[in-house]
């Protein structure tokens, strides 16, 4: 403060020191940034590999892992082929809105099928495994496919009704395989035949691929309702169109 030149030279020395320090620190900082970026990159690659490895979507399904009595690869059409109207449904057995839809229109749809007024193209999917602690969504669809495979479309439809009537709450533990077997038997399947299929979750890979097919069909949620190929914009208009078709 007192001596101006002393103050100045001190400032100059300080600046030189700072510049030298800056050079060293710049090199050091670059190394630190490089190390952090490299570490993050390695972690990221490992995580992405874990993600893609744990996703079996599209993996080949063995012959034994493919349900029988399907109409196409991932759907089953129920009803007389002469029925004038085709209803196409994408449903998840864990989906509460599907349950509401089935409660409002399920009975009439089944009457419509029996009367030959409609045929229903069921595209069952399972994307709500995270809604239960036991992957109920995919296990219940596996059970439905076990019923379809061993007891045919009518039994599948009965199982479908039972499953929606008894749908476990979202976030619950779902229902155990033994209950799924009970429902399957109630629907008309042979216990000895369906038990190993349900306990072994044998159609799981098919279920995964069926769910992926929904997305490739540009359907992103359930229930999605088509009447004669026309996608209804929401569930309420879907209910209306379906009830109109079965009238």
């Amino acid at each position, binding site marked *: 403060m007192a001596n101006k030149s002393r103050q100045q030279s001190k*400032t100059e020395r*300080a600046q030189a*020191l*700072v510049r030298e*320090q*800056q050079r060293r*620190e710049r090199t050091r*900082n670059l190394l*630190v*940034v490089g190390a*952090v*970026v490299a570490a*993050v990159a390695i*972690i*990221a690659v490992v*995580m*992405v590999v874990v*993600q*893609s490895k*744990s*996703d*079996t*979507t599209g993996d080949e399904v063995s012959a034994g892992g493919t349900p029988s009595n399907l109409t196409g690869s991932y759907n089953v059409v129920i009803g007389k082929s002469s029925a004038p109207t085709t209803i196409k449904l994408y449903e998840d057995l864990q*989906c*509460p*809105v599907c349950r509401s839809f089935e409660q409002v229109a399920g009975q009439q749809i089944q009457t419509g099928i029996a009367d030959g007024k409609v045929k229903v193209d069921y595209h069952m999917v399972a*994307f*709500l*495994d*995270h*809604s239960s602690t036991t992957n109920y969504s995919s296990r219940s669809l596996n059970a439905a496919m076990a019923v379809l495979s061993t007891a045919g479309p009518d039994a599948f439809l009965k199982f479908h009704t039972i499953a929606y009537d008894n749908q476990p709450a979202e976030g619950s533990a779902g229902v155990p395989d033994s209950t799924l077997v009970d429902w399957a038997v109630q629907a008309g399947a042979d216990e000895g035949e369906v038990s190993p299929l349900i306990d072994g979750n044998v159609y799981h890979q098919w279920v*995964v691929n069926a*769910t*992926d097919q*929904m*997305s*490739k069909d*540009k359907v*992103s*949620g*359930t229930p*999605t309702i088509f009447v004669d190929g026309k996608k209804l*914009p929401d569930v309420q208009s879907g209910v209306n169109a379906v009830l109109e078709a079965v009238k």
Partner: protein
Amino acid sequence: MKQWIGLAARLIVGIVDVAAGAAKFPDPAGNVRQVRAFQLLPEAVVPIVGHSLPTIELIVGGALILGLLTRAFAIVGALFFVAFILGIGAAWARGLEINCGCFGSSGVPADPQRQYAIDIARDVGLLICCLWLVVWPRTRFALDNLVFPHQERLADGEQVTSTVEN
């Protein structure tokens, strides 16, 4: 004051990103379907994008919470929020019914129009937080302050001389 706002911005974006990434991580197949639902990317890259998203969210979120390479990760975050806003806006404009799936997927939302507006508003807010951090990356309680101590002092002009005089 700016450093405190920066801290808040870091934590907001960081916590949202980590929560979103953690919710997505267990369901890689679902993430791929979510990406596909936007109908913007070619099918060839849809799976890899779906598989990478949760990782990117976890890493960007984690880095921002820690305050590590804040500016760089804020830039990455900002780019992603711009992409999300464009994606949601495009889906909205084309009338696609998608649930953003940001926090794990569920069914189609009850009121998609409202959901789109909410999602875009949220992403705009998060984008603003990221841009703040791009402009003012120095924040309180950041790992950057420990890892790059000199840079901090340089930025605070007065502190440089005071350090030398000590």
